[in-house]
């Protein structure tokens, strides 16, 4: 997190309502709830998020959580933005401090002119900080006094106390309690009992603060109509659903943050969505002993003809290296979701990064280049979830989907997913009848000139169907060879296949281009940097800057990216890693224009802010 000296002044008030002489700030601020890990604050935070969404206010929720299980501080940020900006901001205007640990730091970081709501319980759970700032509005909240009498079960009291700040906030910024109740009903899937017990605490807190607080801050929410038709979801759930609608029928995985919730979502939704007419599962999910085995299992399944996938993150990708190379050369389809995070090992496993670009692209040994899809949103997680399955079988190769912690684990507004518009693409598979007609086949022969051979699946009953699969040293007929020309020919065919993939991806995952007439400056980026770039461009445009933007959706890089670069004088490649990895790939892709491409990267474990993007571009 940035320090207090870097914060932006609060947004200019634009509307009429005033409190204590200050112009009201409506639907344009961030809230950060600082709670204890494992205290059940998720219900409280998601209720606030969902309430804003139900009021029609554009909103985004981000969980910033250290790698702990219980007791330590965790932060949840909710941004309401009338302009529809959903990037992280440098500082929150409203700080809700429920955890004494680190509270002073949270206090200091609150945006100028902001709000500090803090737990005052008269015991060791009380937030005690030096409240020296005259610019803040301070509101004490006796959460235990309000919530504990309403919760008979002592074990549930910590959960209830977090609902107290929801009630307090509803009074302070004007969230209709009927909306809160509707949000709770959503959260508890319509179950009355928890809705009522939580609403009792919300109401108690509302009543208490209405009698004990005097509003001295300008922050308010008002109903809008900007979320009509949209949904709120996290990227990992979207990715899992994309895979399910893409026909995945075998999943092997090993727990790892931030990819676990993708496998969890598969486990949640497959039983609902995927039964055969006689009620049997049309899928299998296996939690493997490690990521090595997960890779082996999905490759075994891909070899047998299933649509297979795994979800993992950096350390798991490292373990899958040998198997990825194997599947690349043996030409076996499978899909690997890499929900990227900081690496390696432990320390920052719950922080975001785009540090696996080069690794995933080149994963393997002995000249491998892998197809990578690069979603930037919840919507694209769904889209690439099903497309990845098609691409893997079409090109008979491992396909990576590089999402990240920010997209994957946070709650985003999204337009509803579009049902896949094309039928399942199963690739070149020969049946018994095909073999009878053809009188045989050669597994690795380039019959069609696109570098993609025809394969048969184990269990094919035709006497000519069988072949022997190996990593290296095979010729066209999949026979063992150590003859150099045969292997060279195979490598050349793989290159042709890769170029076919480049052409295909340029169609189904084409770069998203927004070319501005007369712009000399341009941005190239990919993935979860998109919201910060969108906000920065919007703000810079208002200031008169002209900046074009191209967002990459797949590797290998589309050739049209060269045309885009050619049209601009300076192209800033924005990414969240230290070595400017995408920049390196772009320079290799267009060496003659390499000097036009500039590194514009940050690797600090946090989602980019629009302010950083603007400053980074303007300072070049």
């Amino acid at each position, binding site marked *: 997190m940035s320090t207090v000296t870097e914060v932006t002044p609060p947004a200019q008030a634009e509307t009429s309502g005033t409190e204590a002489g200050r112009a009201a700030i409506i639907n344009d601020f961030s809230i950060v709830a600082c709670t204890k890990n494992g205290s059940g604050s998720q219900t409280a935070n998601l209720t606030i998020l969902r309430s804003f969404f139900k009021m029609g206010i554009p909103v985004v929720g981000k969980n910033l959580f250290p790698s702990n299980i219980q007791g330590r501080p965790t932060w949840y940020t909710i941004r309401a933005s009338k302009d529809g900006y959903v990037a992280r901001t440098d500082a929150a205007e409203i700080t809700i401090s429920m955890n004494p640990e680190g509270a002073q730091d949270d206090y200091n970081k609150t945006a100028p002119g902001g709000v500090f709501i803090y737990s005052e319980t008269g015991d060791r759970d009380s937030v005690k900080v030096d409240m020296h700032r005259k610019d803040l509005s301070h509101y004490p909240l006796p959460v235990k006094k309000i919530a504990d009498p309403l919760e008979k079960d002592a074990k549930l009291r910590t959960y209830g106390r977090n609902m107290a700040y929801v009630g307090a906030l509803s009074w302070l910024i004007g969230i209709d309690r009927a909306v809160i109740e509707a949000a709770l009903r959503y959260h508890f899937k319509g179950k009355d009992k928890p809705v009522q017990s939580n609403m009792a605490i919300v109401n108690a807190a509302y009543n208490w603060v209405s009698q004990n607080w005097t509003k001295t801050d300008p922050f308010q929410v008002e109903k809008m109509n900007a979320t009509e038709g949209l949904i709120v979801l996290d990227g990992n759930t979207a990715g899992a659903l994309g895979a399910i609608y893409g026909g995945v029928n075998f999943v092997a995985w090993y727990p790892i943050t931030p990819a676990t919730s993708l496998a969890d979502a598969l486990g949640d939704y497959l039983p609902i969505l995927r039964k055969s007419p006689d009620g049997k599962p049309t899928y299998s999910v296996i939690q493997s002993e490690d990521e090595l085995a997960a890779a*082996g*299992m999905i490759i075994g399944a891909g070899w*047998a003809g299933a649509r297979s996938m795994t979800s993992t993150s950096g350390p798991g990708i490292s373990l899958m290296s040998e198997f990825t190379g194997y599947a690349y050369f043996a030409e076996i389809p499978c899909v690997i979701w890499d929900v990227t995070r900081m690496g390696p090992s432990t320390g920052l496993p719950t922080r975001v990064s785009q540090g696996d670009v080069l690794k995933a692209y080149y994963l393997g040994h002995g000249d491998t280049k892998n197809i990578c899809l690069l979603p930037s949103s919840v919507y694209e997680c769904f889209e690439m979830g099903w497309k990845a399955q098609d691409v893997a079988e079409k090109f008979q190769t491992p396909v990576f989907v590089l999402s990240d912690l920010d997209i994957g684990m946070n709650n985003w507004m999204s337009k509803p997913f579009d049902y896949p518009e094309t039928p399942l693409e199963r690739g070149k598979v020969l049946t018994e009848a095909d073999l009878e007609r053809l009188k045989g086949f050669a597994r690795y022969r380039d019959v069609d000139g696109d570098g993609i051979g025809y394969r048969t699946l*184990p*269990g094919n*009953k035709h006497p000519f169907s*069988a072949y022997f699969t190996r990593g290296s040293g095979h010729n066209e007929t999949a026979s063992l060879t150590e003859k150099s020309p045969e292997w060279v020919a195979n490598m050349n065919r793989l290159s042709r296949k890769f170029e076919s993939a480049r052409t295909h991806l340029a169609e189904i995952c084409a770069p998203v281009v927004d070319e501005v007439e007369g712009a000399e400056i341009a941005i190239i980026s990919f993935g979860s940097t998109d919201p910060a770039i969108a906000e920065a461009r919007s703000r810079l445009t208002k200031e008169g800057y002209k900046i074009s933007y191209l967002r990459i959706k797949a590797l290998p890089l589309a050739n049209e990216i060269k045309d885009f670069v050619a049209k601009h004088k300076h192209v800033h490649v924005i990414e969240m890693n230290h070595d400017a990895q995408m920049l390196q790939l772009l320079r290799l892709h267009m060496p003659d224009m390499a000097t036009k491409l500039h590194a514009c990267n940050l690797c600090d474990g946090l989602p980019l802010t629009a302010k950083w993007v603007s400053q980074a571009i303007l300072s070049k």
Partner: protein
Amino acid sequence: MTTETPTASVPTAKANIPNINRPLPVKPAAPAVNRIGLAKPDYNGNESTLCNGCGHDSISAQIISAMYELGVNPNTMIKLSGIGCSSKSPAYFMNRSFGINTLHGRMPSIATGALITNHTLQGIGVSGDGDTGSIGFGQYKHLLRRNLRMIYIIENNGVYGLTKGQFSATSDQGAVLRHAGRNDYMPIDMCLEAIISGCGFVARSFSGNAKQVVSLLKMAYAHRGTAVLDIISPCVTFNNKEDSTKSYDWGRTHDERINDFGFVPNFEEITIDDFQENEDKIVTMHDGSKIVLNKVSAGHDPTDVNAAIRLCMDAREQKRFITGLIYVNPNSPSLAELEEVNNDVPLAHIPNEQLRPSKASLDKLIAGWK
């Protein structure tokens, strides 16, 4: 478990039941074809590139015999291996079967993915002591824990051959090799490890004992889950000194058969000639095949897990080379059964229309997130 439908009529002749203690029935003239109409050469593989006299080649020959005699459809069998001399051998038998030569120590995970998504295939995996006991030890143990239905052969020679003579995890403690020097560590007992991991079929044999290997392979084929065959298979180039417990000399002079058994596959009726009341115990496999154990001739009861563990421990302690069926439990469900994917249509062949849920189902989900 699913067995393939025979494509030729089942012969009524009594099966050749190997039983080392009884005179074998007079063998009828070798039939030209087996019960599915294939000749023995239909089970052949490529010419071996292993050293002359390698134990592994004998095992390949026994696989060909066993699968031919059982009438296994080669098109529904998949051959798998890891890396090493042993792992080259799937190319040397059953060319009409799909084969996959995977990564060092990683055959179990590939097998799991392939056989869970197509449970109608029969898997036969060939590994070695390095491939299973060292680099692949974790995957081996987890394969057994999951009870994936497949035959898992460890061609155990106590040495790394392809990399020219390093010690493996099953090398004898105190063994001395020309380049590797002296091995100070305890060998891993693959059978003991299998039993304690929950494996329901554990056998040890010697590549020089063709008859025993063939009948164990047939029994392994009938097993519901993972069937482990730890077959001592001498390396003539690097580890065939007479004092090595993995040498031909040692095998021939120390082979101690712990039980006598016959096998009646499920496509044959068991007859009165197959077993002797009061003397034999019958273990019925999940597919209906029967193992006929002679209770009198040997003391070990392979259905007793504690006895099996004790036998392995004692044999290691006393340097006894025990062969035969060490442990059998035909009742544990296989992975495909546990995962409920043992339906008529294997996962890998489910039609597209069942793989993509309806648009209405997506609309319903979306309405719920609004």
